[in-house]
């Protein structure tokens, strides 16, 4: 918005001084549309979360994300919740812009209230939540105003496990192991090796161990990660999101690596 009344309604071509107001007043943001600053079509993620991991196991879905929200390379917020329950059967976990994710949380909360208020005996399950999110994300990307996130949707309803992905482009897919961000490159191969073909035999303790080891590897290698994280478990019993927990890490091996420890030569 151009706040200078003198420049309102004046000829676009400043070479013409129809009103004889010499010297010609210089308009700010010359050459730009007056209202262009009022519409922001595109953006970039500002406060960001890193990887989210999720796997299928015998009784349902297990998902994990750390508690860090970074501001560039600054570890800005160290107690952010990136796993969010949607109703009784679903958890969503997000990487990317945390502002956009919290906006999505508020939309999902409102949606669940509306659905509850209908009192029609139906509850939205993970498949419906994922479909809703995919249409939301796709609609926003089509407006060239995306919600800058990669989201995992995990759930359990009517004896069925559900695990799927949706991102800022509206791209969706499903698999027995999923990971976003760096996790897709670092943790996904580990998860696939541990889980593929054993989805129906892994118990909760084994699943938790797999998730924990993968989070550990991510913490060692992903510079935007934190050793404080949460695990969500979604089974027939419903949703359980754990308290924040610490990763067991050991750095003693660094002594032996040239360039890491305190070497004398």
């Amino acid at each position: 918005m151009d706040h200078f009344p003198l420049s309102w309604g004046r000829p676009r071509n400043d070479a013409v001084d129809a009103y004889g107001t010499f010297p010609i007043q210089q308009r700010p943001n010359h050459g730009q549309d007056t209202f262009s600053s009022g519409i922001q079509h595109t953006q970039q993620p500002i406060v960001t979360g890193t990887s989210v991991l999720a796997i299928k196991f015998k009784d349902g879905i297990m998902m994990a994300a750390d508690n860090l929200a970074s501001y560039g390379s600054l570890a800005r917020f160290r107690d952010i919740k990136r796993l969010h329950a949607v109703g009784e059967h679903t958890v969503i976990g997000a990487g990317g812009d945390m502002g956009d994710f919290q906006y999505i949380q508020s939309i999902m909360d409102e949606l669940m209230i509306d659905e509850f208020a209908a009192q029609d005996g139906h509850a939205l399950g993970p498949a419906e939540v994922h479909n809703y999110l995919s249409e939301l994300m796709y609609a926003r990307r089509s407006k060239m105003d995306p919600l800058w996130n990669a989201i995992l949707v995990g759930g359990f309803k009517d004896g069925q496990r559900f695990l799927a992905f949706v991102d800022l482009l509206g791209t969706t897919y499903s698999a027995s192991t999923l990971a976003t961000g760096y996790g897709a490159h670092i943790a996904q191969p580990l998860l696939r090796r541990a889980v593929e073909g054993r989805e129906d035999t892994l118990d909760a303790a084994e699943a938790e161990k797999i998730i924990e080891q993968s989070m550990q590897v991510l913490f060692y290698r992903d510079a935007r990660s934190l050793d404080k994280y949460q695990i969500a478990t979604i089974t027939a019993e419903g949703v359980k999101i754990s308290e924040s927990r610490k990763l067991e890490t050991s750095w003693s091996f660094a002594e032996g690596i040239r360039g890491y420890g305190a070497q004398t030569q």
Partner: protein
Amino acid sequence: MQHVAVPHAQPQQRQFNPYSENGGTILAIAGANFSVIAGDTRQSEGYSIQTRYAPKVFRLTDKAVLATNGFAADGNMFVKKVRQRLEWYRHAHAKDMPLRAIARLIQTMLYARRFFPYYVYNILGGIEEDGSGAVYSFDPVGSYEREACRAAGAASSLVQPFLDNQIYFKNQTPAPGTTHPAHLPLSHVLSLVIDSFTSATERHIEVGDGLEIYVVLAKGSALQGLDAIQGLSELTTTDDGERMFVIRRNLKRD
């Protein structure tokens, strides 16, 4: 004093790219009284495999199958919208839309987005009202034609010339006094489809994991040896119309 208009230096803004490419390949071949529509099931972005099973071939009606390839989000949304239009047609006319009408519908829907296109190559296969097998292929903005065969997607340049040779008999001279067949038998077509995908899997990194082959048989036609194929399941919903089958096979996962 001179007054010169100096444009303000604007901060550089990285433009958001609303498109992506998700790899994979699709292929369709029309026979005299059948149509075969196939696609691999790998979905990838760059060098990462997102999933080993994401269908690209979709049943639209009892006699129409649509395969989509390119940007997966656009593809899925496009199929969703086509299905919605077909349902409205059913409610209005109490019958399924004929194949050639679906083809024209798809061209209209694609061209409607001429200036923000669905980044998708479509191939429509099925049975025409006259009982003949048909394949229609489209570009992202709706140019389309009816053909006997078409490959699209990541490995289309590997597969299409092979099909020219094996389906259209290009560069082959028939023995004196004979002609090349206009349509191939179903079993032969299925072998060519499987060979095409194993070849594409071998030489293209974005193709592999799984293969889904849809077969639509015209009303009243025989199984033509289809029942002997491994991994076959029937999707037919009525017992007096076209029959539809799907064959699921594994492809190499590396």
